[in-house]
């Protein structure tokens, strides 16, 4: 980097305190360590589906290894040995909150979703995927992949007094800062695999970013306290781009980047219009990102938090998802609701099978993954935040025992207990997360 280095260093030191993520420092540390150890890394994905489930058809029969799949879980039959079915997990902090917002936004934080039409928005804490993303800094090109298929909906739900935006965020960088999911496959693809193209201009981009960072800091200095937080968001996002440029530059020769570039040349994404294709393509991209070790952590909202997606493509389903989730114990609605639940399980089973079909080292990619699938509520009719539908696939490098039904000890436990266990398998030793009381398993 031929010029501006002094300014930059000074600037970076200056704002290092205020900024959450010390990207460049972690990068420097990582490049000193020896790259590509023999052990493949653990990857984690968190898939959220909306509107809960019809419990009677979801709950598996029997506990432990010899359990039987329920009707809704039937699509898991081919991957049963790789899946851990969890029951009895809940989000006590969602209890009492209204509607879907207080159940969705905290799917990965476990804490209270603040009731607000905008001011002081909060999901109570950092989300589990973002904690893992922090640990991936310096190890991969894209530390955090946050995906969705629906744009954030505008407006306020006046009935319950929450901004609708809550229904579209599960990843939270901090309690008050949600991450906007990327919904365009082409952009995701470009971020993950477009390295070669971008690299051509990277030195100019660096100058541009240097300029912009300096500019942002001078703007920040002129702002009041609360507004400075807004500028910090901006600075953080600039630095995450800068991180990627720097990462590419330093790791150009590593297999990790070379593989990603090969993928970039061979895999093409066009525009998608159909909801089903959209989910499938996004999950394909996640599989590729995991396979090439371009990212290790991903969250994805398979639809908005109170999605009213039409499922008329399923036989016998003639109303929208959210409408059906308020089934009022009416058998006709329940049967339609159950079909939609099952459809989402099918998408998951397909994704898990795909990860299992990819070889990695002695085993499969799935062996080194933790793929969580679940919803922020159980019975959608009651918006019940207990006994949540939660599936976890993959063996986290053979440190996790799958192929069984794990009922929470004593019948109920915080969902965050599972997150503590997952953080442990991911290599983050922590005693607690969110409202956890103990690890769910060792």
């Amino acid at each position, binding site marked *: 980097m*031929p010029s501006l280095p002094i300014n930059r260093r000074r600037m970076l030191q200056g704002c290092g305190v205020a900024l959450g993520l010390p990207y460049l420092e972690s990068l420097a540390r990582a490049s000193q360590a020896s790259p590509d150890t023999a052990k493949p890394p653990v990857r984690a994905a968190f898939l959220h589906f909306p509107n809960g489930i019809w419990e009677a058809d979801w709950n598996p029969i029997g506990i432990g290894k010899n359990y039987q799949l329920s009707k809704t879980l039937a699509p898991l039959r081919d991957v049963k040995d790789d899946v851990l079915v969890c029951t009895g997990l809940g989000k006590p902090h969602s209890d009492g909150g*209204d509607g879907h917002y207080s159940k969705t936004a905290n799917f990965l934080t476990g804490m*209270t979703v*603040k*009731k607000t*039409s*905008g*001011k002081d*928005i909060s999901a109570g804490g950092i989300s589990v995927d973002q904690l893992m993303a922090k640990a991936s800094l310096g190890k991969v090109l894209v530390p955090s992949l*946050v995906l969705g298929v*629906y*744009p*954030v*909906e*505008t*407006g306020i739900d006046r*009935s319950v007094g929450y*901004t609708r*935006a*809550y229904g*579209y965020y599960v990843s939270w960088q901090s309690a008050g800062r949600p991450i906007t*999911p*990327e*919904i*365009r496959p*082409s*952009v995701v693809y470009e971020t993950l695999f477009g390295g070669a193209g971008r690299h051509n*201009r990277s*030195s*100019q*981009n660096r*100058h541009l970013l240097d*300029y*912009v960072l300096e*500019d*942002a800091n001078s*703007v920040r200095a002129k*702002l*009041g*306290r*609360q*507004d400075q937080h*807004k*500028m910090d*968001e*901006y600075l*953080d*996002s600039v630095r*995450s*781009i800068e991180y990627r440029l720097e990462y590419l530059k330093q790791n150009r020769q590593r297999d990790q980047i070379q593989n990603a570039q090969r993928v970039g040349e061979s895999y093409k994404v066009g*525009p998608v219009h159909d909801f089903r294709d959209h989910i499938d393509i996004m999950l394909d991209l996640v599989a590729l990102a995991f396979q090439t070790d371009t990212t290790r952590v991903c969250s994805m909202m398979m*639809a908005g938090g109170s999605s009213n*997606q*039409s499922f*008329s493509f399923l036989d016998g389903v003639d*109303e*929208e998802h959210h*409408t059906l989730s308020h089934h*009022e114990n009416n058998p006709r609605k329940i049967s339609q609701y159950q079909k939609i639940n099952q459809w989402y399980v099918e998408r998951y089973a397909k994704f898990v099978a795909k990860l299992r079909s990819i070889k990695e080292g002695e085993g499969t990619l799935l062996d080194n993954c933790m793929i969580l699938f679940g919803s922020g509520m159980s019975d959608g*009719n009651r918006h019940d935040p207990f006994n949540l539908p939660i599936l976890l696939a993959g063996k986290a490098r053979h440190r996790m025992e799958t192929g069984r039904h794990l009922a929470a000890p004593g019948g109920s436990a915080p969902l965050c207990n599972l997150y503590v266990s997952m953080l442990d398998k991911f290599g983050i030793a922590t005693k607690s997360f969110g409202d956890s009381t103990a690890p769910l398993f060792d």
Partner: protein
Amino acid sequence: MTSSGKYGLLIVGFVAALSAATYYYRSIPNELPLYGTYSEQWLSNREKLLTRKDLVALYTFQDQSGQQGVFADLSGGWNTKLKVSEENFFGAERPFDMVEGRWPWKNAVALDQLPLERSPIQVSQAGFSFSLWFRHHGSGMRPGPNLDYTGNILALGDGVWSGWKLSLMARSNALVFELGQPKPQYPVGVASASRVPPRTWTHVAGTWDRNKISIYINGFLSNSVPYQGEFFQVESFNKFRIGFVGNGLGSASIEVDELVLFDSSLNAEDVFAIAWPNESLSEDINQRMQLADRHIADAQWLQAAEIYDSLIDQLSSSQLRALFQLRTSQCFAIGGESDAAMQRLTIVQDQADVSDTIRDTAKAESLAILEGVGPDTYPFKSDDEPQNRVDAHRLSVPVPQYDRAMDQFTQYRNVRDATVWMSRFDHDIMPLVNQICVGCHDASSTNGDIDLSTIASGEIAGKHGSFWDLAARRVEKREMPPADATPLSDADRQKLVRWMRNRPRAAFCEELATEDNKRTYHSQASTRRLNRLEFINAYRDLLGVGLSEDTLPPSDGAGGEGFDNVADVLFTSTSHMDTYLKAAAESIDAVIDYPVSDNRSILANLLRDELKTQPAQGHELAAVERILATFARHAWRRPVEGPEVAKLLELFSIVRNESESFQEGLEVSLQAVLVSPNFLFVVESERDEMNVQRLTAHELATRMALTLWASIPDQELMRLAASGQLNDPQTLRQQTKRMLEDPRSRGFGEAFGARWLGIDENSERVPDATMFPEFSDDLKQTFREETIRFVTHVFRENRPPFELIDADYVWANDTLAEHYQLQTDRPSGWQLVKVTGSQRGGVMTLGSVLTATSYAARTSPVLRGKWVMERLLGTSVPQPPPTVPSIDQSAPEVTATTFRSRLERHRSDPQCMVCHQTMDPLGFALENYDAIGRWRDNENDVPVDSQAELPDGTKLAGPEGLKKALIERRGEVERQLVRKLLGYSLGKALDEYDQCVVDRCIKKMEEEKIGARELLEEIFLSFPFQHRYFHKGT
């Protein structure tokens, strides 16, 4: 709890409680203004209370037990401390503040977010009572999550199905004391027959003695109703709560002091003694008052008035005389004798030596009478409710006439308060100021920046607004006058501070909330990035190019009043930055690489002018400098300083040298302008240490352009900002007109119109393709376009704002003319088409609205009714209780007719009736439109029934009937429109400081019949739009 058990515990706790009480109040100052030796009287009263056998709990809020948010029960009750509820409803960070209580040396608790709560109280079937001092904040009422109209003060359980509660009616400021009844009954209760003015301490007591429920205000019986039924105990897991309750019961911003609970029914004498412990009434007077109470119970107000009146001369203290004057006048007022009431009220409010409670109440009462908000509008005294049975649910539906009266009342109160405040300056304050302050603070001195000698009247004083807040702080802290100046006696100091602090609310029109006077702006961000639409439009105006799918920023969520321009919810993620970089690179490339001659954008023009020919060697930099400076000025909407241009130029040089390409250097430096936060963010920067500052003309121009165009200012606007002319109201009005006439004002229709009406382009809800094959993306876009054009039209042409509801035309193209079956020559493009009849015209008949309020396969009268209530009338509708089964309309056997009868049965359930009785009729009136907005006379060969009736008897027949009903409620509709417009223009949730802008706009609409464009002009000229509040930076 059995009574013996309780008394046992009581004795155990007693000793500790008494010694605690002594400890807490040891430091009471001896000299207290107004109350003299009140403290001792009050302490002995406290001891009397503590020895009462029927005492259940006594909270003074003085102590915090070393634990934030915990208050001891001084009666020593075990495990009955009041704690801040852990239920994090509005956020637990600052659940309450301690404020100055009933006496200057004593704390009280301010609650507006979380309730204080404790374990439930078992109520004796022999009766019970409570007593408390409380103060509320009128328009500062915090709307509850569901119903806006009641604010909880005390509640045992929910007070609806069991237990009891005391609540404040937000509109009337009356108090309601109710006993819950099991479903499906309603609570029984009593409403106070007089209002409780905001911002003054009021004593309230409630009793039930197995025979009647009574409510006492300031020691006097205010009203009572018979009730001999049972008391329904709450479950043990329930709570006793003070403040916000939730569960649809609303909330109020209140302060509470001295709460006492008894498990017997207090008599009137007891209540009076607790309220006024330093005043005593003779036996004879007490007997006469009992007689008055009996009259009140029989609603014989004039008889009661005469009794109180006859007692005045026998009273010993001026305080008591004023109290009885007030009470006399209240009874006269309710009894219809306004003149007699006014005569006494005038005496009371000018009396200096009485407590604020008495004086403020008198002031509120007299203004209410002046304005005709007299007895007949007390909500609970109408003829058809002789029992005064409170039906809080019914009252939760706003009564338009009453609202209007209250609005007028508020306005008059403001004017009246201001007059009193100003005249006090003339008589009491100005002599003091002249004597003490002017010696230093005059024209010749440099002490502060104010020349006090120029403040020669109360009227001029009023214009100095928040200066008096600053002055009050300094005088109170004894910083002023300084030690070497003319000394100020304590009494005069107090007089000065008190006057300064009492600045009337009318002045709010000229101020914003600040750190000192309000918590409104705590943790509220104001600097925000451009939202998606503004970003797209700004690119269009700067570069003349559209953006490709991959360079469009993600969509934005909404906050504030429901618009997506609110800083709190405009987050910046990595994916935004990816997009910004890419958009800048692609678009700048497009302008430079593929110059199109018809591109008249700012950048294209600039490049053409500066780079007609390759700049000569050595002149290259100068040309680039001009390009960058001009481009940055437009993109950043402000003058650009030398060092800023130098930085851009430096970037140009670095890239140019490294890439050895002039074009590369130019491109990257132009990109930098667009990726800079100066472009992406609406930066309004702080200029000195004051909290509230006037915006610069450029910042004002930006706000106007964002509001009217959802884009950045153009050259003309920038020119007027640079010359300062934009600060001239006349210029601002001309510009508003010009900008609305510009095609870019489509942005207003999109950002305001579509959002206000809830037309979300991202909605997942689409009509079912098999049932409505006619529906297509094209039709959806056409609907959206119609919405935008219609709303924009009303503002552009300065039409009466109500035309948004009631128009005799539609905007249509040929697709729409066919869809709507308009009787017209086929229009070829978009045009205004006159319509007759009531089938079309107005926002309720828009295809976009009718589709958005339908399910995929059917219409929904409920959703449509809810839409009318929420969007047009500004009433929020709570979520249905989870236990109520809905109607399965999709079941094959359900036809339109059966659906309606089922819905009517559904409404007969009292739980549902509250909302549905208003919501459904509004929606049924729109049944002639199908789920994609087409007119239909029949559904499945059965004629559509669009007849309905509102609870107040208004008949609604089809869209015409609905329009008539809305015309009846014109005031509510217009208020809602103004609120939404202001909320959109300011990009935030409205607070009490914005309220007077709303009031002023409404007044102008009523009196001057201003049009929609002029309404926007009023907003642009308003204080909150032209000023900004700055948090202190770090």
